[in-house]
């Protein structure tokens, strides 16, 4: 399709038809501020922060939902839209706890960034504000609806991306707020705790519990890695402080997961430093030192050893069984947590080294 040419802030921008003004601007490196819009989510048009002035339109239009057309002339920073943004921010702050000093999101909060950028204080439209209890019912996500700006990013991530539909908007008007399941605790909802809602929340309303109090964004080193849980290979960005993982995010540039993860990838990183974690191979006492293998004797105890010894013991055992009962008495089960290459090698080991076709894979079960 023919490209569409439009002008944004005096700069000529070429884009594909059907794209929004927001997308066109983003492609051209022009930032239009937004709270409810997110590149990975369908547009919502709710926050009214991304309002821009478009020639020929009576009122300012949200850039996230306004589609481009040839010859469009867009102003993203006219006095009118800047004033509108300020008012929206003032109104949002008028029903916000303003506890940035101790808020978990300080430094990674879009509302905070915009209030700073537009020099908006929280005291212009004093009035009643919400006092919701904080929901800590589940092990992964803390929900503080007092900090929620009802942008519905979480609703869209849960419904449009994951199809779980655990989050929706309850009540209306000033009392409209996010809720889970049948508006009960998150723990009792269909939530799978994938944390996609946490990933897209622009404020401190949805926070990963494991990271609370562990470090500010500027104290954290971000390390890209591939998730070690399964063979999908999601790209993660680990948040590391003092050589300890305090959090994980899906990387938006991950070719496999495009920013989304499951509960394990996002929240299951505490095993790394867990005291119960095995970091060395272990062998039963009797296999190394002989003696009885009775379960109630010392021969049954685990003994830490090195890899060569452990593999030697395992190989010896397999050889004995094959010699005594034949190769088909051995079966091999591979894992989806292993790489393709590792599974291929396991297949070689089973068929060519051991000599059996008894090989299967956990993903088939």
């Amino acid at each position, binding site marked *: 399709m023919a490209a569409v040419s439009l002008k944004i802030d005096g700069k000529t921008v070429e884009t594909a038809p059907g794209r929004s003004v927001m997308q066109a601007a983003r492609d051209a490196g022009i930032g239009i501020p937004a709270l409810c819009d997110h590149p990975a989510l369908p547009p919502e048009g709710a926050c009214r922060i991304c309002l821009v002035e478009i020639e020929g339109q009576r009122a300012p239009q949200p850039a996230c939902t306004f589609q481009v057309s040839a010859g469009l002339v867009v102003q993203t920073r006219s006095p009118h839209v800047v*004033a509108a943004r300020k*008012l929206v921010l003032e109104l949002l702050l008028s029903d916000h706890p303003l506890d940035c000093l101790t808020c978990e999101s300080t430094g990674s909060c879009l509302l905070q960034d915009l209030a700073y950028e537009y020099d908006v204080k929280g005291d212009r439209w004093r009035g009643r504000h919400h006092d919701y209890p904080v929901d800590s019912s589940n092990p992964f996500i803390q929900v503080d609806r007092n900090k929620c700006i009802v942008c519905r990013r979480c609703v869209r991530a849960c419904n449009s991306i994951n199809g779980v539909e655990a989050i929706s*908007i309850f009540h209306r008007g*000033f009392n409209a707020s996010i809720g889970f399941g049948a508006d009960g605790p998150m723990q009792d909802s269909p939530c799978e705790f994938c944390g996609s809602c946490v990933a897209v929340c622009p404020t401190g309303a949805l926070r990963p519990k494991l990271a609370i109090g562990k470090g500010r964004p500027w104290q954290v080193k971000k390390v890209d890695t591939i998730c070690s849980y399964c063979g999908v290979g999601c790209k993660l960005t680990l948040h590391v402080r003092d050589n300890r993982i305090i959090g994980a995010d899906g990387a938006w540039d991950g070719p496999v997961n495009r920013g989304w993860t499951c509960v394990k990838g996002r929240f299951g990183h505490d095993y790394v430093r867990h005291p119960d974690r095995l970091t060395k191979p272990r062998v039963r006492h009797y296999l190394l030192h002989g003696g009885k293998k009775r379960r109630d004797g010392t021969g049954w105890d685990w003994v830490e050893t090195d890899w060569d010894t452990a593999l030697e013991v395992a190989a010896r055992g397999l050889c004995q069984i094959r010699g005594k009962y034949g190769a088909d008495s051995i079966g091999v089960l591979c894992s989806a947590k292993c790489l393709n290459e590792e599974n291929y090698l396991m297949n070689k080991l089973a068929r060519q080294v051991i000599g059996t076709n008894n090989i299967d894979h956990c993903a088939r079960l």
Partner: protein
Amino acid sequence: MKSDSLSTTSSFEPVLTRNIHRPGSEKIETYLGNGGYRAARRALERTPAEIIQLIKDSGLRGRGGAGFPAGVKWEFMPRDASQKYLAVNTDEGEPGTFKDREIVERDPHQVIEGALIAAYAVGAGRAFVYIRGEFFLGVKRWTKAIADAYEHGFLGKNILKSGFDLEMSVHRGAGAYICGEETAMLESLEGKPGNPRLKPPYPAQAGLFGLPTLVHNIETLACIPHIIERGPDWFAGIGTAQSKGPKIFSVSGHVNRPGNYELPLGVTLREIIYTHAGGVRDGRRLKAVIPGGASTPIMTAMQIDVPMAFETLRAAGSELGTGAVIVMDETTCMVEVARRLTRFFSHESCGRCVPCRIGSVRLYEALERVERGQGEIPDIDRILELAHGIGGITFCPMGTALVNPARSAIKCFRNEFEDHVRKGHCVVSRRAFRGGPDGKDSHRR
């Protein structure tokens, strides 16, 4: 009724409401006995394109508030779509408006006939009636009327042997004001929360369940049989340059005879109030009028010679809206009016966009402070600033309408707001503040 000799509308003969005072007016027998469904019969013999042209020629504009030309809307409906819908908007929620309710309760077949003609013209095979949950009698009458229309062959398969099919059913809403907005109504019909949709796409492109949908107000549909019956020239001969036809004005407030009055568009407020509604109660002086329902800007008594038409009211700084005339006499506190109307809108906000969700509450609170006498003079300008800021930046038109009461009340009656601030109480109604601490009105008069 007093002599209408001074009236410019003395020769006008009501059509939409001509049957409603007959006993048993809601029955199909009464309707048929008065020439009912003759227009439908006539329309089904003509082509849909001819019907659309008739409606265009008549100049009929939507009676739900926006005043969009009906014929143009019909033309927007795609011709090649295999399945199309008609949605009949009976969610009459605009405060002060009670015209659709009366038509539905007393002459529902008029609307069914209009709906049948409209559905035939745009090729819609399924009609959904969305009715406000509180209209208990209306639901009963609609349901009965639809059943009777099926029985007489005006609904169902092969209507009047024309080969045209139309199924119709009634869906009760839960009473949210915003569900009168067409896209919110469609969401609600689909079983979702009544939040307005993003436009475009417009309902004619992708409406109910994603299919092309024609949405019409009750009064608009009620006009259609008469246009078919009497011709577009008759209809276009009534009214002003840009506002054609008869219109039902719901008159409420401080008048001697509140009620629905069917009059030609272009009639003045003065005539509606003094000739038809019996003048202001207790011989008091008129103070202010809301000409088109709560969302339209307040006008002063000085402006009552403005003709009630889309273009003239807009030029006068207000809107025709639904044509609901709310009359206020000299004992009315305009600060209280602004506060209570703003409270209504903040209560009815769907909560989707920030300016409406939070702004309406802040507006209400500021008005409440001024009314209680706790405000300061700059607060009045702050109210205007907030109202000005919210107007035009909300997701749907309701957010913009919600600032009208406050903005127009200050524009027309600023001195009353200042009196509240300076004297700490109301000098007009001589009453103490009547709102409760939780923002609810503690009692009604």
